[in-house]
Structure formats: C-alpha cells, structure tokens
C-alpha cells in the first residue's frame, strides 16, 4: 500500500516536499517517518531527539488533521497523507 509523506519548511529542504512510499500493512507512523528520516542524518536530528523520539515541538498531521505525538504509534493505512511540520519561531 502507498502512503504520502509531506514535509514542510526546513524539513522540506532536508527531504524534499513529498515522499511517496510503499509500506506493508501494520506499519506505524513513527517507524515510517524514522525510516525515511534515517536517509538523511541532519534531517533525522531535526525531527528526532537522541532517544529516537520525536522532538516535542514537531507537528504531525494525518489527512489534514493533527495527530498527537503519543498517537504516532498507530498504524498507517493505504492512501494516508502525513504531514511533518516544524513550527518557526523567528519574527
């Protein structure tokens, strides 16, 4: 099955805008994003901390709806669109 991951802002520079990926049933959000992020060490460090958990400020969305980081252990389904967004702080 196929899932689309969309990166925003700085994450887009590190991974590109959209990543389409084929996944097996039962794949968790966390493991999917981890798998993609690991291809880019700098990008990985931008999204995950040294324990492998999401930085707590990272915003995750599924099909346009916010998902809590605590829910990232849930599984993805075919056609899901996942957005990974870093809030920006400058002004």
């Amino acid at each position, binding site marked *: 099955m196929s899932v689309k991951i969309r990166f925003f*802002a700085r994450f887009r520079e590190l991974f590109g805008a959209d990543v389409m990926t084929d996944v097996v049933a039962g794949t968790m959000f966390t493991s999917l994003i981890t798998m993609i992020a690991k291809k880019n060490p700098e990008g990985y460090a931008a999204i995950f901390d040294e324990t492998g958990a999401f930085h707590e400020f990272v915003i995750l969305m599924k099909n346009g709806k916010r998902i809590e980081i605590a829910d990232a252990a849930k599984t993805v389904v075919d056609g899901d669109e996942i957005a990974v967004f*870093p809030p920006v*702080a400058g*002004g």
Partner: protein
Amino acid sequence: MFSERERERYKRQMMLFGDEGQERLKKAHIFVAGAGGLGSPVSLYLAVAGVGTITIVDMDVVDQTNLNRQILHFDRDIGRKKTTSAKEKLQEINPDITVNAIDVKIDEINAADLVGQADGIVDAMDNYPTRYLLNEVAIAKEIPFFHGGIHGFYGQATTIIPGTTPCLKCIFPKAPPKEVFPVVGVTPGIIGTVQANEVLKYLLGIGELLTGRLFIWDGMQAHAEEICVERNPACEACGGIAKKTTARKKK
C-alpha cells in the same frame, strides 16, 4: 469625522469600505508586540491604513544586522532605541494617528497592563515564551491574537479568536528552540503583511479570517498552503473557556 486631509489620504480604500469602515479603523487600538522583522511591515501597513492608535513595544536597540529586514529602521538609527525609531517613522508616514511606543521587555507582570484596552494583539515576537504569554492575555481579554512566525524563506500565520478558534498553545503545545534564525527580509514582509491584512479585516468585519487555519508560506517554492487546526479541549491555556458564537468585532 474626518479632516479633508484624511479624506484624501484614505480616498482609495474608502472606495472599498466607506466612511463607516474608515471610522472603525480610526477608533481602533492595536497592540503590536515587537518592532522587528514582522513588527515593521505590520505597523507600517496599519499606520497607512489609518488604524487610530498603535501601541508598539520593543526592548531592543537597532543593530546593523537588523537592517536586512526591519524596514522601520534606517542606517542612521543604528544604536537608537527601536521604539524611538518606530514612533518617528510611523508618525511621519501618517501624522493623523496616535503611536504609543513603549521601550520595555514584555513579561508576566506587565503584559496585561501593556495591552490595556487594545482591540487586538499582533504577534511580532521572535520567541515562544513571550508569544504564549500574549496568547494568555488575548484569552483573558477576549481579543484576537494575530500570530506570525518566520525562518529563512518560510513563514506561518494564523488568526486566533479566543473561545472560537484554537489558541497558540492548542496549535503549538511545545515551543521550538530559540535560535539565531536565518532570514531574508521578504519573508517577514510577506507574513507581516498577511497579519496586517487580518487585522484590517477583523476591524472592518469583512472577508474570511485566517481562523482555524495555519497559513504556511514557502518562499523557495513560491507556494502557500494551509493546514486545518483544531481546538484542544484539554489545552492548558484555553481549554476551560466556552465556545463563542461571534468571531467579529462588535460594532
């Protein structure tokens, strides 16, 4: 009532919203938190639109490194207080408005008093702790909070109406780390102008506000999109307040 000079000054926008709209702007008081990258375009556009009273707060001195983006401040202002420089420019660009420029660090003790009776707060800050503080002031006073943030070529904006939309803490429960952020002046130019546009629509009671939506600007791709954002019923800042039915400034 408008002077002849004001009628001429606002002629082209009064074609859009008439005497009544212009009167609304004239009677309005907007609090701009920060006279930097975002605060510059926000306050300039609110000033030229004729927002009657602008309070702008900043604690910094103009530094040469500010000048690539903070268009309120000129080369000659290096070393001067940003508030002094801001008041001077805003009064020069529109002598028919009142500008209060306050040189202070916004903190837990003074935030509510600084905002006073303002009709809305513009977030032109560069850090989340102060943003969260102002978000709470907006909730307590039941006034809108016009959020903006930038990094490099990227920006975000949303309009928060306490009791109706998610608040800043619902959308961003945890602050990203403070950093010396890279930035090119056009980015706060774009986001600050979006914020000023929101303020004007809110005051005028026209159009669709950026409520419940996070506007995301990617200047590298010249692409804008938005993501839906929702209230968090358990939000530590706004979770306790009841849903409001009106999202408009009262006449």
